[in-house]
């Protein structure tokens, strides 16, 4: 085992257990979410809501062409417009030719004089008194363009002679920019041998079309300089990271950069990973410094369509199977648009498939940058779902049987996984089997399952059932720092800075601290929006609880130890010495519960935490009435902790043990091609649900997002012009309340997750897996494959031979 794992105080290879008898808050229902009232009452403040005195609004020029370059630009009329306070041009010495760091280790032009997709923010930025004036000024900018040929399709982009998608940067269209894989063939086992041993070989092509974030709160941010200090308000999931990037851009020391992270209207990764997401903030900082005013940069809805998901792909897949359902060989080639990933990964990690060959190519196209949007494992789920659906259909087998047959880890079967569980103290439970049994019962699988295209309903529609499965994941390595501070009145703060991503994580951190310290949940509070120099954690997206849960636990345990030492020590204040709260007792003889410190041997001997700490920091020994008087005489109870979570949530060799499955029941209208989703059943092995309502929220929310992507979400470009045609929320559709029937949420708790207390995240899994939920169900309903997402009515009709 790697040294760093051995040295970690928490060994992710071992089971981390939930101890029900020890907890009052963790794992319990009815814990009030700390953001609940603020969000329901409209009191929660988002960056979009903030106005500062004297604030200007910055707007970008947007490219009207998918691939073009500025020859000349005249901004004089814009500069002369009343109310315009600053215009930054691409050829300004401060930005000209300046390539700066973005996220994912990438670089980007600070302000480009060219574009590589239609609608790109580039060329010039105007800061004006109002958004209207800024927009007016942009119209006055005159540009002479060099218009270049463009390419919109990943496969076309890789053909010889294709137009160069980003000629300023690359002299070919084949990309291996992180996180896209290098164009190397991966080999496990011997694929050709596998095909020779196969009873059946199937081949198919499948496609997923470009879709995107379409996040809730329109993108924006504010920069303000005060002397040489920079202050930022960030609608971003990596607030702390901005301190580093601004230091890189401006040489401003990080200790003079203060960031604020107000609430975030849902982002799901996406924009936060786009290289120029931080550059937008940098440009506003330049304008803020030049104008001496705070500058808020803002996008409108059309301008917000500037990034998409990294699973726009075409895959050519060949599978060798045995008649009993075992998959013995997979050969797969995928071509992505702008950003790709390892489409074969879930087969490698979580099945017993012995022979795999895979090639992932990424073609640069003239579409917006593509990145992880809940989440980067979409390509893996895409390949996984399509293979399993096709295999089950080819063998005329129940797809749940095919799943059970192939479950495993890294080319080994269940017996290998079970041995691993036994060796590392996990319960030897078959997560997939347990999930399938529960889910089958809920959807009525055994009664309703039928041959493809075999069930026409009295209403004339075709009935279909679908099943998909996958493993759990938490896709983001991360590290967090946080402190636990006990105030003089016994109330407890978590001290850390992080962006809210809406998953109720902050409440759960309070639950961890409360239960580990022995406090009541209502005595713990976490106001995470302000920069207190402890990043917990950045990036703030994936791995929330599975990283920060460990951080909070460590800090709380240390704070508890300090508290017990205070309770048994003399507190020396300026005026007098205060005897110990528990004289003659050792710290180890005490415990804390319900916010009270008590003697283990005699629990009736107890004092509140407030009583124990009241004479500490901030007191001269005259009691709480004089608390405001200076005279810190005793260090406060404050403990901090750090934790690093491994790559993809686990360390090498730590198999994933929890399984996630989804069933659906649909009706397909053979006349219109429309799909009615009548019911969805989610069965998620979350290891341990620490906040059950939040888990259910992820199950519901992920399902709506996933199914919406499956049947409607798609960016549509005009082929002759390369212009995006549906850049509004009227034309870019996603699921509304009426688009799905009932969604059942079943939580399975095997305790085998890699996070604290045996938990694991599912916030990304559900949305990512269910993005392909209906594919098998449409086949079951119609007997025809629609291997082209989104599965829109026109494609269904075409499959039925009606269009």
């Amino acid at each position, binding site marked *: 085992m790697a040294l760093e794992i051995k040295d970690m105080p928490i060994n992710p290879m071992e089971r981390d257990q939930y101890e029900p008898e020890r907890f009052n808050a963790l794992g319990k229902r009815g814990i009030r979410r700390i953001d609940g009232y603020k969000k329901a009452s409209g009191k929660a403040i988002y960056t979009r809501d903030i106005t500062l005195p004297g604030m200007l609004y910055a707007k970008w020029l947007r490219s009207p062409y998918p691939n073009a370059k500025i020859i000349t630009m005249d901004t004089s009329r814009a500069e002369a417009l009343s109310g315009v306070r600053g215009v930054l041009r691409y050829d300004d010495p401060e930005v000209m030719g300046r390539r700066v760091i973005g996220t994912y280790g990438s670089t980007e032009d600070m302000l480009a004089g060219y574009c590589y997709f239609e609608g790109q923010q580039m060329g010039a930025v105007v800061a004006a008194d109002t958004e209207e004036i800024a927009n007016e000024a942009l119209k006055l900018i005159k540009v002479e363009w060099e218009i270049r040929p463009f390419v919109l399709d990943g496969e076309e982009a890789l053909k010889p002679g294709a137009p160069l998608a980003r000629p300023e940067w690359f002299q070919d269209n084949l990309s291996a920019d992180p996180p896209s894989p290098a164009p190397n063939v991966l080999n496990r086992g011997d694929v050709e041998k596998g095909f020779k041993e196969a009873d059946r070989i199937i081949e198919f092509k499948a496609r997923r079309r470009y879709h995107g974030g379409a996040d809730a709160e329109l993108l924006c941010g504010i920069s303000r300089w005060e002397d040489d200090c920079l202050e930022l308000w960030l609608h971003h999931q990596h607030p702390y990271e901005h301190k580093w990037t601004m230091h890189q851009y401006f040489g401003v020391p990080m200790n003079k950069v203060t960031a604020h992270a107000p609430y975030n209207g849902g982002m799901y990764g996406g924009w936060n990973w786009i290289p120029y997401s931080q550059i937008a903030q940098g440009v506003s900082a330049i304008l803020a410094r030049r104008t001496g005013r705070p500058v808020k940069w803002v996008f409108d809805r059309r301008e917000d369509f500037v990034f998409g998901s990294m699973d726009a792909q075409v895959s050519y897949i060949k599978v060798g199977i045995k008649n009993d359902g075992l998959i013995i060989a997979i050969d797969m080639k995928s071509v992505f648009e702008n950003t790709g990933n390892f489409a074969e990964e879930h087969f490698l990690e979580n099945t017993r498939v012995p022979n795999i060959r895979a090639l992932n190519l990424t073609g640069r196209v003239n579409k917006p940058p593509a990145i992880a949007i809940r989440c980067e494992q979409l390509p893996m789920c895409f390949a996984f779902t399509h293979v399993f659906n096709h295999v089950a259909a080819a063998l005329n087998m129940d797809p749940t049987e095919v799943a059970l047959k192939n479950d495993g880890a890294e080319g080994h079967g269940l017996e290998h996984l079970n041995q691993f569980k036994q060796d590392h103290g996990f319960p030897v439970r078959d997560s997939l089997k347990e999930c399938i049994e529960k889910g089958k019962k809920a959807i009525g699988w055994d009664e309703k399952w039928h041959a493809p295209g075999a069930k026409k309903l009295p209403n004339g529609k075709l009935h279909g059932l679908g099943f998909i499965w996958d493993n759990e994941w938490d896709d983001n390595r991360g590290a967090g720092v946080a402190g636990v501070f006990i105030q003089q009145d016994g109330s407890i703060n978590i001290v850390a800075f992080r962006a809210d991503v809406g998953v*109720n994580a902050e409440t759960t951190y309070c639950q961890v601290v409360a239960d580990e310290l022995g406090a009541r949940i209502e005595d713990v509070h976490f106001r995470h929006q302000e920069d207190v120099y402890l990043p917990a954690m950045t990036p703030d997206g994936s791995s929330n609880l599975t990283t920060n849960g460990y951080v909070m636990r460590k800090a709380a345990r240390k704070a508890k130890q300090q508290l017990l030492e205070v309770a048994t020590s003399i507190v020396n204040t300026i005026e007098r010495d205060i005897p110990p709260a528990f004289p003659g007792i050792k710290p180890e003889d005490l415990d804390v519960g319900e916010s009270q410190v008590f003697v283990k041997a005699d629990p009736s001997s107890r004092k509140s935490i407030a009583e124990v700490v009241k004479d500490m920091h901030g007191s001269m020994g005259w009691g709480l009435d004089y608390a405001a008087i200076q005279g810190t005489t005793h260090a406060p109870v404050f403990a901090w902790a750090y934790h690093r979570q491994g790559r993809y949530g686990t360390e090498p060799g730590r198999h994933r043990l929890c399984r996630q499955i989804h069933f659906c029941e649909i009706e397909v209208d053979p006349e219109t091609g429309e799909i009615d989703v009548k019911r969805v059943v989610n069965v998620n092995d979350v290891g341990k649900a620490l906040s059950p309502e939040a888990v259910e*929220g992820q199950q519901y929310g992920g399902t709506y997002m996933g199914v919406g992507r499956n049947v409607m979400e798609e960016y549509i470009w005009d082929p002759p012009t390369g212009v995006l045609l549906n850049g509004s929320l*009227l034309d870019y559709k996603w699921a509304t309340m009426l688009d799905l029937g009932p969604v059942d949420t079943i939580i399975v708790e095997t305790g085998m997750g890699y996070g604290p207390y045996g938990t694991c995240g599912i916030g990304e899994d559900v949305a990512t897996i269910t993005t392909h939920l209906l594919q098998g169900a449409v086949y079951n309903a119609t007997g025809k494959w629609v291997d082209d997402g989104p599965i829109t009515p026109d494609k269904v009709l075409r499959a039925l031979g009606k269009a």
Partner: protein
Amino acid sequence: MEERVYTCPYCAMAHNSTEALKSHVIAEHKTEPLPSPEGLIRLAINGQGYELTVEPHWTLYQVIHDKLGLTGSKMFCDRGACGSCTVIMDGRPILSCMTLAIECHGKSIETIEGIAEKKHPLIDAYVKHHCMQCGYCTPGFVVTAKALLDRNPKPTEEEIRQALAGNLCRCGTYPQHVTAVQEAAKKLPNS
């Protein structure tokens, strides 16, 4: 002191004070006694009076959110597709981003802030049932649900779904809203 005469410009009737003349013009001629400054509107928002001058192209959302600081109404789709900017005007839920402020003169408006201040049972039910993740669209849902309960205090599940169908939630919290609205309905004072 010399006694002044205040003559009505419409009918020449004489009055002995400006107040008397104003009352006369309002009562007899059914009009404002003095011309309003261009763009002046008066609104009652959450029961409080507001008087301000607006540009003709300003939306009600801009006035409520940007000018008056009632930031609970949210800009999401920015053009009538998502329901996040919903307010109740004269009893009806409307999209404040699609309504010109200048047309709202004399209207009575209720925003999420007013609903929360009155401790409407929806707020507690929304918190209890986790009807929010990022929370950006949540106020719009609460306002729409409040308008539903105002006109139909005992909605069926289907009526709730229909009423909230115009509100978009990117986090996909939809099923939880139905539960919360049903629970809030049971807690309404007259139920």
